[in-house]
């Protein structure tokens, strides 16, 4: 498998990707800024949201049990999936029982995690993504590159090319034509589908309400038209009460798209009841762990507070340069760099935590105040403990420790380095440096060590 460094290099060479990602994220962060500046108690809203999330995650077992009980009381089925495989098997079993041929989906990052579409296809079931961006990446055979704008790495020309293949004729690149084409194509699929699968932004424990936030209305069609409805939910998505939901929807919409409220906030309560005109005959809530519970009780527990707003992605200078695919799995940006090694294997994915300048822009915008850049430092320490830090860095910091843990040794070492560097100095700059500093010189000049260090000057002038 490619390393993060290699994926980043590839992304940096893709000029169209760079332009598209910058344009989208820069627009989204300005919208967020405006929406946040429009309220005078933003910090209070953030703090309230943080407290709700902290309380819920600290009592996750209690609220999940309450949620399951309420959903069942409403006539829904609830399944706790410990692994991705368990979740997939459950969905396949429901589909088999109902002889499902076609599935319509509303955006779900959990379904990406468990690679549900591929498993459905392997069993002869066609799954069609109905979120416009998600539809685009599905046609391209890719994964979403952003939490809420999954096709933001593509420009209009690329999208027109994908749609033209489906249409069997070249389509113009204007947004109205492309949207119209997707709408007509998807509309047919909605009417054919036997099963709807959605994600879940929040699930309210006290009422059993499943909440879906979209801006296209497709979520509403997926939850009402097909006979069978499956909601996939990360186990951390629960909120205690409708009041709490209100507080979280407020910070979510502002942080995500800069809206006061998303265009469609769909609240569903169980399957269709007698006398109701629409809604599914059967509702299944699949609550997915897939590594999440391993974070409970650790210093990384706060990562479960995330409400997937994407604000951290939109302000992250790394993400703004390379987009989400460079992170190699489902989740990109600062939150992706934190949860990917935790959900999967730190020995393989720990390098994601290195892909950050620790600038803290993510932490500053997080609506639930997750200290993302501190969690990245913690993950780097865990990687080092697992022996995953690159050997040259281990060696370099071994030498560094020896040199810098005693000021007299540092002063002697500095004097020696001042002499040793002479053959490599030209015009006050170093022309060569050993690894890993050679990587610095690949892009930038490096000044030579000063002939007289500050401490040498102080000793000479002030007598130490």
């Amino acid at each position, binding site marked *: 498998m490619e390393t993060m460094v290699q994926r980043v290099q590839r992304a*940096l060479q893709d000029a169209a990707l760079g332009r598209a990602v910058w344009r989208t994220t820069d627009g989204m962060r300005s919208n967020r800024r405006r929406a946040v500046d429009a309220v005078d108690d933003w910090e209070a809203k953030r703090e309230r949201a943080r407290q709700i999330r902290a309380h819920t995650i600290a009592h996750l077992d209690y609220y999940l049990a309450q949620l399951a009980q309420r959903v069942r009381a409403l006539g829904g089925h609830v399944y706790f999936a410990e692994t991705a495989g368990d979740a997939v098997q459950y969905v396949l079993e429901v589909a088999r029982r109902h002889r499902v041929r076609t599935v319509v989906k509303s955006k779900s990052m959990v379904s990406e995690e468990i690679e549900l579409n591929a498993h459905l296809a392997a069993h002869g079931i066609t799954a069609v993504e109905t979120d416009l961006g998600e539809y685009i990446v599905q046609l391209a055979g890719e994964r979403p590159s952003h939490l809420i704008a999954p096709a933001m790495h593509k420009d209009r020309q690329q999208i027109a090319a994908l749609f033209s293949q489906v249409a069997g004729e070249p389509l113009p690149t204007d947004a109205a034509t492309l949207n119209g084409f997707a709408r007509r194509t998807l509309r047919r699929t909605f009417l054919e589908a036997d099963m709807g699968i959605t994600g879940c932004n929040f699930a309210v424990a006290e009422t059993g309400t499943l909440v879906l936030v979209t801006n296209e209305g497709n979520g509403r069609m997926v939850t009402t038209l097909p006979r069978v409805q499956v909601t996939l939910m990360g186990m951390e998505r629960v909120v205690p009460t409708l009041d709490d939901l209100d507080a979280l929807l407020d910070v979510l919409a502002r942080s995500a798209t800069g809206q006061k409220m998303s265009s469609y906030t769909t609240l569903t309560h169980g399957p269709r009841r007698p006398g109701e005109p629409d809604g599914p005959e059967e509702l299944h809530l699949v609550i997915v762990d897939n590594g999440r519970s391993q974070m409970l009780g650790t210093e990384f527990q706060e990562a479960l507070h995330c409400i997937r707003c994407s604000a951290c992605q939109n302000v992250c200078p790394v993400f703004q340069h390379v987009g989400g695919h460079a992170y190699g799995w489902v989740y990109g940006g600062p939150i992706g760099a934190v949860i990917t090694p935790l959900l999967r294997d730190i020995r393989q994915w720990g390098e994601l935590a290195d892909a950050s300048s620790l600038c*803290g822009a993510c932490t500053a915008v997080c609506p639930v105040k997750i200290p993302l850049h501190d969690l990245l430092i913690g993950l780097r320490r865990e990687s080092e403990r697992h022996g995953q830090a690159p050997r040259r860095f281990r060696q370099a910091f071994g030498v*560094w420790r020896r040199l810098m843990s005693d000021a007299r040794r540092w002063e002697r070492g500095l004097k020696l380095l001042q002499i040793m560097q002479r053959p490599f100095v030209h015009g006050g700059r170093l022309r060569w440096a050993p690894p890993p500093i050679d990587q610095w010189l690949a892009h930038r000049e490096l000044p030579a060590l000063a002939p007289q260090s500050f*401490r040498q000057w102080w000793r000479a002038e002030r007598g130490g």
Partner: protein
Amino acid sequence: MFTRFAARRSGKGGGAVRVSLFITCLLDAFYPQVGRAAVELLERLGVQVDFPMAQTCCGQPAFNSGFHDEARAVATTLLDAFANSEYVVAPSGSCVAMIRHYFPRLFAGTPRAADAQALAQRTYELCEFIVERLNTTDLGAEFPARVTYHPSCHATRGLGIKEAPLKLLRAVRGLELVDLPYAEDCCGFGGTFAVKFADLSAAMGVRKVENALSTGADVLTGLDMSCLMHLQGLIGRQGRGPRVLHVVEILNSRGGAA
């Protein structure tokens, strides 16, 4: 004369304010002129400056890379060097953020935990110290040039130092301060990030340099020399971009260019 008086007045016990300078390993080895400017500036303000020789480095390079044992071994030199200091002042936002935010965590549960807490509470970034502790903004500097300021991440987001350096720069005679577009975006330095993801780090830096160029500024300044070393290195390699100076070099200048 007034500033000298101000410094004395705000000190404990009526005498001159005593400051121990934490010079940082980077300035010590590569940019001693910035350290000397800091000494001159503080002394002109009537501050009594000392430089405890036992100091080396705050340990941040290792800490941020996950090598916390190594970081602790090196950071201990600061606990020893500044054990008796009244104030510790460093011309760096990043190193001060390391001490203030991460020393208490790094030493938690060790015999030096209390020392780390105490040091965190009496350590200041230089501009912050001058504006907030010495209550001074006009340092009598003169620097006729168009200048733009890069607010480095650890200073602004890490320490909340936003206005202090700007207040000091605005008071410099002849200096025209121009806004840097996307000022709070990271420059891409990031410590070992600069060599682990060298291409990406450089791409982020190039964007910062382009923004600086768009202001028409003669000089790009900031209070973190590590970020500035990265930007200066890129500008040098590209052969275009403003001159790069640490803010202390500007604040210590007396007419003409620094």
